[in-house]
């Protein structure tokens, strides 16, 4: 059925937005195969964003565990420092074709906000970014970057004042201004066609990885690990391998203070299906269906929902989902910095921390790919606070 991943997904939004969602789906379907569009996006990806990103063999990390070989897909090397640009470049071209004069976005860690402000500057389009007030404080530098890039940053003070509330506010803005505004959602969440569009633009991560690993090793990897908040970097690297059953896919959610506390974002691990922000998907919620206030040290994973395609992949047992705590992620960030000279984003550090559990079970011949979705410069405030050197 249109817009569904099994029973998940859908378009649970107010009537005001339906015309815009239909228009977006139509324009996207006719655009994605249009050669002018394909060439324009490819040119931007190469000459503006700096793709392809390398696949780096992590030799010292590999030696540290003394088991399988570890590779890092270097999405941290995208322009502005995370995989988010893959999506915003595609969507700004769609906005141009839709004839929209104004862009809005939500952001948690600020990476999607920065990536949206960046493409808006590049294309000369007005940009407003909604950001929870808690995140405005913990991601101060990204707020300033967005302002440097000419975007208006609106702090959101409702609810838990994090990503979920920023998303609510962006959707409300869109309901009000849908005639002239395109909403660039930053992850594989929200109503159809967003989970599909964002996935398609992020799939470039997995496509490159497949070619690169086959060049290095002559075969597909045994494991791919990615962090999951909304889940766009994970879907991006997983998707081209979904039909390769020999590749084990692992999604890592934010365990916060621990999944035996209420302060976590382990949606797929502990949630149950429901409807939120336009989609039917796994959610962290109470018995009455009220959405939970969640916690993660990483603003980008601090979200009580998850992309509907992940919900399907969980139910199909195609991807294994588990969680990593704040403290484990911090240890992993320090470890990668010391062993590989790469400071990872706290989001990506969750995926890296899973190596502690996975690597002892691997053998020398195993190949593990980690999606290093972003760099950690944006997290320095948090890191200075939490790590004593």
């Amino acid at each position: 059925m249109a817009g569904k991943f099994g029973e998940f997904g859908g378009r649970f939004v107010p009537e005001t937005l339906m015309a815009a969602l239909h228009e977006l789906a139509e324009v996207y379907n006719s655009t994605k195969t249009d050669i002018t569009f394909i060439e324009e996006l490819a040119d931007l990806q190469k000459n503006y964003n700096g793709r392809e990103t390398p696949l780096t063999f992590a030799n010292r990390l590999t030696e540290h565990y003394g088991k399988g070989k570890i590779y890092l897909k270097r999405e941290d090397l995208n322009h502005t420092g995370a995989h988010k640009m893959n999506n915003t470049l595609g969507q700004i071209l769609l906005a141009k074709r839709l004839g929209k004069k104004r862009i809005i976005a939500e952001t948690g860690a600020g990476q999607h906000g920065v990536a949206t402000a960046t493409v808006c500057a590049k294309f000369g389009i007005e940009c407003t970014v909604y950001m929870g007030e808690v995140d405005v404080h913990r991601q101060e530098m990204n707020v300033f970057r967005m302002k440097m890039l000419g975007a208006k940053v609106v702090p959101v003070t409702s609810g838990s004042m994090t990503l979920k509330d920023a998303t609510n506010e962006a959707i409300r803005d869109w309901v009000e201004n849908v005639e002239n505004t395109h909403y660039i959602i930053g992850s594989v969440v929200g109503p159809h066609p967003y989970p599909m569009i964002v996935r398609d633009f992020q799939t470039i991560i997995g496509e490159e990885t497949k070619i690169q690993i086959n060049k290095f090793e002559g075969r597909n990897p045994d494991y791919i690990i990615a962090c999951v908040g909304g889940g766009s970097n994970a879907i991006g690297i997983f998707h081209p391998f979904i039909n390769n059953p020999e590749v084990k896919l692992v999604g890592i959610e934010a365990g916060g203070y621990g999944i035996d506390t209420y302060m976590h974002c382990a949606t797929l691990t502990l949630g149950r299906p429901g409807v939120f922000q336009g989609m039917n998907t796994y959610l962290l919620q109470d018995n009455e269906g009220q959405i939970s206030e969640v916690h993660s040290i990483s603003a980008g994973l601090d979200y009580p929902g998850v992309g509907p395609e992940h919900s399907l992949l969980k139910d199909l047992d195609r991807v294994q989902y588990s969680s990593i705590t704040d403290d484990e992620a911090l240890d992993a960030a320090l470890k990668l910095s010391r062993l590989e000279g790469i400071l990872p984003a706290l989001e990506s550090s969750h995926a890296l921390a899973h190596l502690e559990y996975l690597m002892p079970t691997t053998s020398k011949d195993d190949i593990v790919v980690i999606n290093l979705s972003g760099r950690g410069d944006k997290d320095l405030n948090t890191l200075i606070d939490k790590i004593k050197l």
Partner: protein
Amino acid sequence: MSKIKSKIEEVNRNGKKALSIFLTSGFPTIEKFINNTNRIIDAGADLIELGMPFSDPLADGGVIQQSSQIALQNGITQKQTFLFAEELKKKNVNTPLILMGYANTIIQYGKEQFEQDAINAGVDGLIIPDVPLEEFDSFFSQFSNKLDKILLTTPTSSKERIITLDNKSTGFLYCVSVSGTTGVRSGFDDKIIENLKATYQTVNNNKMLIGFGISKPENIKQLSPFADGFIVGSAIIKSLQNENIDETIELVKSLSEACSTS
């Protein structure tokens, strides 16, 4: 025959527009809710929309968002909302009760149980703004037709779509005056008026009530040629914030008066 529809028809036959008042269940307090609502009905509300508080109400502006938050902090539950409905219905047999809220509340309660408990409590209809036409059939597949399911039309709905919405909606058709969330607005410009006029001409199957941005008697007077009734929410909730129910009652009376004379 739908009780909601016959009530609106009855009010219209008497030369009046119907007045539907939205109230967030359990706001401003659980203790005051029933008494407040009874007085609002006595002051001239023809229908009551009982808002089921949700943590993330996408279609609502600041005032109703806040009232939902407070109601949740007051400890409101869906069971309590059904108890309120039952109590209101006992005293106001002829005032249709409509539950308004979001899909997840119904899903987590269990759809079949929800319908049963709603019917038992005397509820007449549902308005679920995050279940649009595209999701309607599958969402309500476990429901009978005992409760009216009221659909919304907006300024972005095409004429063709309005006809479909009109055919599918039961009870009445909820016409959202402007693109945006619920809340008080300064006024309605010519473009909005033209659009409401066109929508009213297109709607043949249902009575049409206009909501969103209706806050004072002047709004009702201005728009009454293009509607069978009006829905007022945020303005009422805002007046209830002041904890002075007399002020709210005066507002309801003036709105009801505007419905009679326009």
